[in-house]
């Protein structure tokens, strides 16, 4: 059985293709959204999802979130006594989703389709695949998120022939894809995006306002304060969306301020972010060679498209209202299940095929000889042009600059600038070219880009027919097979809270957060509740636990709903 996984910046989902349709799998708390958070509790056990998210505020040094943003980099996060790479944190989330799917299906799950932002680079994609391996999942396919959304939407619409645009603003990334559907073929015409633009950036704007209103910068070093502020800003962002007004009470040591917003003020603040949405859309339209007026529909994906200002902007941009009908939080995961169904050659999908593109240009660097005999370096020679249908393999021949040259260095870059310094370096390889006869025959450089978006570079010295393959390594981010094996063993040794205790852990984490938040009588009350619940848990009497969980949950809900205290101030 292959499952579909939307490994998101803030939330992740798992889905399966079952009974001729995509189905979302609930987690132990009954929700299909599992926060992409990992924490280590006081006993050194790993908590994943909602329980970890609750602990972000109470245990910021033992809890991690937003690690998708660092995939493909060497950034390491220390939780309790161990350093974690972004791949490992993602792997822990994947592992929880895998367990959910196994519980749902009643059979082991070993293969997955995992979605990635279309604009994810080679290093980020490789890191995602490694995360899958570390979670014990064979990654059958890395699927671009907007393409997944399009698969779900296309199937949902069931129209024979249509052109549409997917506007996918997630927690941390922005992607645009333009698709054409005909005769059961779903063809991505163009994709573009921004890897560092998402809903979190909008939350961050509100966070910064606290510092603009009298909270000193030293407070940034206070991890607990910062997590609380972020959580409060997140709530404020949602309130702004729902009611058009929000305020944040912020206290830090003896500093206090109230930041109040209305929707127009927030939009003004967000203008620089909104401006960054244009470029990828313009580029995708341009590359697909169609005008916005020729599109049949605009499909929104990603939780951040719930923000009214994003919806209004999309409406203004395209002069029409975006399609509603599929939940933007869920559409990518549904599409991942469709791809899993395609992979399993499910009967219901016999007539559907999908092709995707390489969203960015891949090339090498070249030097250019000038009139005066000198030469200038650092020019970019594209080998695979962006928005070429994948899989694709292209070869180009390059020549040494001088007859004495002993080696040719081939740099591999991704990007659209004509100068390599403005593009992203992916790796490089040096091949020997023997001076002498045949020296000037040069080298053939072959770039192969597969359906998963992974690049392979092969250099052939024409004269000697020797072949060299380039392992793309981005800095130190690359992990060797041995290292993956070692980390896999280490991760397996970690104690993870079993699924069936997840709800209890989540409730306790939430209670602890409320305890720290509240004062006076209410605080004592929560303290009593925690103590009582822990005692019940210690008895291991399942019936007693089941009964108490019920009370505990309702009581916490009542407290959180605000009947016991004013809107939660930060600290």
């Amino acid at each position, binding site marked *: 059985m292959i499952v579909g996984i939307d490994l998101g910046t803030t939330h992740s989902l798992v889905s399966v293709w079952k009974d001729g349709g995509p189905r979302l799998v609930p987690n132990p708390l009954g929700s299909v959204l599992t926060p992409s958070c990992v924490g280590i509790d006081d006993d050194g056990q790993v908590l994943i999802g909602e329980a970890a998210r609750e602990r972000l505020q109470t245990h910021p040094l033992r809890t991690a979130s937003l690690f998708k943003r660092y995939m493909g980099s060497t950034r390491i996060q220390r939780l309790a006594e161990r350093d974690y790479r972004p791949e490992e944190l993602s792997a822990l989330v994947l592992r929880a989703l895998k367990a959910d799917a196994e519980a749902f299906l009643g059979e082991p799950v070993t293969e997955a389709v995992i979605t990635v932002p279309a604009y994810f680079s080679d290093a980020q994609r490789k890191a995602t695949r490694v995360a899958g391996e570390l979670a014990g999942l064979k990654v059958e396919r890395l699927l671009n998120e907007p393409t997944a959304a399009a698969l779900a939407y296309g199937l949902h619409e069931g129209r024979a022939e249509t052109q549409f645009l997917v506007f996918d603003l997630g927690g941390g990334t922005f992607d645009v894809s333009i698709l054409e559907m*005909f*005769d*059961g*073929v779903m063809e991505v015409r163009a994709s573009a995006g921004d890897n560092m633009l998402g809903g979190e950036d909008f939350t961050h704007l509100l966070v910064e306002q606290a510092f603009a209103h009298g909270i000193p910068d030293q407070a940034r070093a206070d991890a607990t304060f910062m997590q609380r502020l972020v959580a409060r800003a997140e709530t404020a962002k949602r309130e702004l969306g729902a009611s058009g007004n929000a305020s944040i009470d912020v206290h830090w040591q003896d500093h206090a301020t109230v930041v109040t917003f209305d929707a127009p003020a927030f939009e003004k603040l967000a203008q620089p972010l909104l*401006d960054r949405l*244009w470029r990828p*859309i*313009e580029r995708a*339209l*341009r*590359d697909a*060679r169609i*005008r*916005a*007026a020729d599109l049949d529909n605009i499909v929104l994906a990603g939780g951040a498209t719930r923000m009214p200002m994003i919806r209004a902007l999309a*409406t*203004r*941009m*395209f*002069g*029409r*209202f975006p399609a509603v009908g599929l939940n933007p939080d869920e559409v990518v995961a549904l599409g991942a299940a469709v791809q899993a169904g395609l992979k399993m050659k499910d009967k219901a999908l*016999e*007539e559907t*095929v999908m*092709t995707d593109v390489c969203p960015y*240009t891949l*090339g090498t660097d*070249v*030097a*250019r*000889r*000038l*009139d005066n005999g000198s030469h200038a370096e650092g*020019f*970019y*020679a*594209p080998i695979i*042009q*962006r*928005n070429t*249908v*994948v*899989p*694709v*393999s292209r070869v180009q*021949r*390059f*020549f*040494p*600059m001088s007859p004495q040259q002993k080696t*040719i260095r081939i740099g591999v870059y991704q990007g*659209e*600038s*004509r100068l390599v310094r403005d593009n992203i370096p992916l790796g490089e390889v040096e091949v020997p070219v023997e001076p002498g006869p045949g020296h000037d025959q*040069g080298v053939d450089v072959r770039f*192969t880009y*597969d*359906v998963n978006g992974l690049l392979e570079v092969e250099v052939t010295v024409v004269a000697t027919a020797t072949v060299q393959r380039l392992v793309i390594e981005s800095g130190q981010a690359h992990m060797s097979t041995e290292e993956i094996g070692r980390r896999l063993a280490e991760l397996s040794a970690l104690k993870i809270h079993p699924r069936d205790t997840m709800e209890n852990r989540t409730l306790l984490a939430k209670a602890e957060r409320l305890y720290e938040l509240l004062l006076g009588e209410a605080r004592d009350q929560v303290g009593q509740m925690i103590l009582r619940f822990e005692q019940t848990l210690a008895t291991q009497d399942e019936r007693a636990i089941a009964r108490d969980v019920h009370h505990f949950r309702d009581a916490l809900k009542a407290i959180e709903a605000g009947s016991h205290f004013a809107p939660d101030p930060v600290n």
Partner: protein
Amino acid sequence: MEGPWFLQVLGLPPYADVAAVRRAYAQALRRIDPSADPDGFARLREAYETARAWCEQVGAEEHDADTPSREAASQDAQAEGGNTGTDESAPSAGSDARREAALLTEAFVSGVRTGDAAHAVDLLERTIAELRTRYIDAPGELEERLIDLIAGQDLPHRAALFDAATALFHWEDIGQLAPLGERGQWVEAVIVQQSLWMQGDPVQRRQWLDPVIRAAVPIDAPLAGHWPVVDRLCTQYPQWIGLHLHHTVARAWKASFEALATPVQQKYRQKATTQAKPRAPAKVRRRFSLPWFGLVIALGALSHLGQAIFNDHGLATFSLPWSGQDDTPETCAELYRQLSRKDAFAGITDRAARELTHRGEQCERNGYWHPVPRTDSH
């Protein structure tokens, strides 16, 4: 089976339309697993893309053959009206936005005509920012309009505007110009010529360009003597020099020079040739090249128009692409059909090719560049 290779790969008879090609491709795609058989997929994909391009070309030719009359043209116009009808079904903000964008564009054009270069650049930036708040296609429409105005020498401060537009519209990015068709080719040509120009000696460049920038009608006698140099620049950098030199000035300059006594003309010609070392265009080898060169060649293959101008390094006499005769909508339509044919430039002289190209550009600038005569200009 007979027929072109791409139709054979798709299992189609020697003749097929777009719908048949798409259906055949869809069928074949179901039988192939791109990840398991990338070579087979690449072959299918190439056949499909070639076949689609082929169908479109054949379709366009047939369309031309089918619609020689004015009635057909008006039917066409009605059909287009139908298309805009779907735009109006969008929220009413859409058509308001379009009207506002049109007003903004007009304000930009008249603003540039009245202010200085810095003002023009500033206005361009502000107009793009404003247009972006209207609808997504609006900046692209300004971009096309701007290229038409600069290429047609219909605006002052062309050099400054071109540089600003290069940055604002990311013209130097890979693949950015290809979707602009002939306009993109024109921009490409200017950028390539500009980079060749920039390779020269800065002092020399200054000496050559200064008179061009200073020049205004009437051309006085000392300035007239610069003509042989300017003439050479016009030949080497025809599109780029057009940013600095208006064609009316060039014509007046040439006339003033020819009014000089023959020995004086000779002297200036002599001076111009000794001054300028014969410079071959930058010698480029692989591991090497200006990235745009490849693109220019690839673009050139799409249409003969831009290439004909661009390759015209060997010009001896003064001739700017925009100095053609005046065509009517009817003759423009005729020319369009003529130049759309694959063999349009086969077996004719450079001069004739240039002539055709110039007329084509003129037609386009006047808004008559359509397969059928249209009297509305934009």
